[in-house]
């Protein structure tokens, strides 16, 4: 991986593919609270799809539905042509959906490296007895995955904190490590929940670059929740807007920017 080389990036071409994930008429409520009401939208291969909306609109809940943390009461999820009523976490992970969380959900007691290695767990095959003996295949496997993890560490420029327990890291770095953990799974779809919260502009720029590179380089499809409109408008291909659990807009950044409902509900007049 040589993403640090700008030339490599100029050459890459982004090709938006067919719909890979289609959400149809999703409704989700908790007791009396309606978090999502009849929401449908789709995600195409290779695209960067943003979800925006005011606080409590149901954005995070949407991601939770996509990867099976929440089970919607209604609706259909079609992922790679397969219909399902809902996902379950394990199946989602297995089929290539990885994510980051709004309230950082790193494993606090583990080092950065270990956290990133956990992202590769689904790719590890040797059983626990072999691992206990740590000989032969288990050892080779561990080293091979360690290499991948190190590539990600290099990519995210967090070499220096490799062996630091994540609990000690400042907020912004934790966000980056979490991205690393998701990337380690080499996902097909990457769900990012406010990856740039708590970062300054410079760090956001870096993060954007990471996201764009992942998208370019691996063709990873990205679903992104972000409150920084600058970021959303600059890097996403299409944007869904939610408000009070309802979809109020969907389209290219420019379309959304012009949508009066969206302006009223979310963007305000200053944008």
């Amino acid at each position, binding site marked *: 991986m040589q993403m640090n080389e700008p030339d490599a990036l100029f050459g890459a071409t982004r090709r938006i593919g067919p719909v890979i994930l289609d959400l149809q008429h999703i409704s989700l409520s908790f007791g009396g609270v309606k978090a999502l009401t009849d929401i449908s939208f789709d995600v195409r291969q290779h695209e960067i799809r943003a979800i925006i909306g005011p606080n409590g609109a149901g954005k995070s809940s949407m991601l939770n539905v996509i990867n099976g943390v929440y089970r919607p009461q209604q609706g259909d999820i079609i992922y790679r042509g397969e219909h399902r009523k809902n996902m379950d976490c394990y199946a989602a992970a297995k089929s290539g959906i990885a994510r980051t969380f709004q*309230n950082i*959900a790193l494993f606090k007691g583990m080092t950065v490296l270990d956290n990133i290695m956990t992202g590769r767990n689904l790719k590890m095959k040797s059983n626990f007895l072999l691992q206990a003996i740590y000989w032969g295949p288990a050892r080779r496997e561990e080293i091979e995955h360690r290499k991948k993890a190190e590539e990600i560490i290099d990519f995210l420029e967090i070499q220096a904190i490799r062996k630091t327990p994540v609990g000690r890291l400042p907020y912004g770095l934790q966000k980056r490590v979490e991205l690393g953990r998701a990337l380690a799974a080499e996902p097909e779809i990457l769900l990012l929940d406010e990856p740039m919260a708590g970062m300054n502009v410079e760090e956001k720029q870096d993060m954007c670059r990471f996201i764009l590179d992942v998208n370019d380089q691996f063709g990873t499809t990205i679903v992104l929740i972000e409150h920084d409109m600058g970021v959303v408008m600059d890097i996403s291909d299409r944007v869904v807007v939610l408000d009070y659990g309802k979809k109020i807009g969907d389209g290219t950044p420019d379309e959304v920017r012009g949508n009066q409902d969206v302006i009223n509900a979310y963007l305000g007049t200053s944008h």
Partner: protein
Amino acid sequence: MNISFFFEVLIGGLLSGVMYALVAIGFVLIYKASGVFNFAQGAMVFFAALTCVGIMDKFGLPLWLAIPATVAAMIVLGLAIERVVLRPLVNQPEITLFMATIGLAFFIEGLAQLVWGAQVHRLELPIEDVPLQYLADNFNIIVSQFDVMAAGVCGVMVLLLSLIFSKTKVGRALRAVADDHQAALAVGIPLQRIWAVLWAVAGIVALVAGLLWGARNGVQFALTFIALKALPVLILGGFTSVPGAIVGGLIIGASEKLAEVYIGPMVGGGIEGWFPYVLALLFLLVRPEGLFGEKIIRRI
């Protein structure tokens, strides 16, 4: 099946359950206030009871004077625990605090026997532990009047504490503390003072439990073991609920007695040691936070 015998077992169980609840309440208080599972509660019960009879024996004071003296001792103990043990451990993981209370238990046990000696004492409360004549004569059901009184005391305590927790801002503050020490400090809840008060109150509750249990079993080291009887009550009722302690106590008491009498003989008896735990465990499978406990929030 003999119906009156069944009722006798049931009532006996319910009343024992009240006695368990008495100890469980002490746990609840501490858990509510700090999210700490206070392993030293049993030791505190022992310490309180022993101090009370110790004062009576050594200084020849009557019971009604020994009790306030012991209350004072328990308050001092509560303050000391806060200052020396809890304050430096603010915001530490629960397991660390739990462990500290184990150290505390050793300390208190050693202290109690160091000060008051190792021998067993008797403790006579003004109310005798004999069957209520009326019930025995008319229904052939034996219910000890002592137990009835204990139930009354327990009821009053539950009522009082529930009121404090539900009607005052301290109650709310306690729940806040149990959720997040740091944030509680940040909003200005005087954690230290609250803890000190709560431990002192838990000490007084321990004294009540110690007096009742001590009158029943003798004041001896084994009083520390009754904590083991209170645990299933606690998990069944929920760690954070005072009414839960009493409801849990009744359920555990009744079912353990019924099980020992009706199932015990089939398997060789002595099942009271584990039966309440297994029962509570099965119950938790349905409600992982106990009957009235706060639901554990697992969300990302």
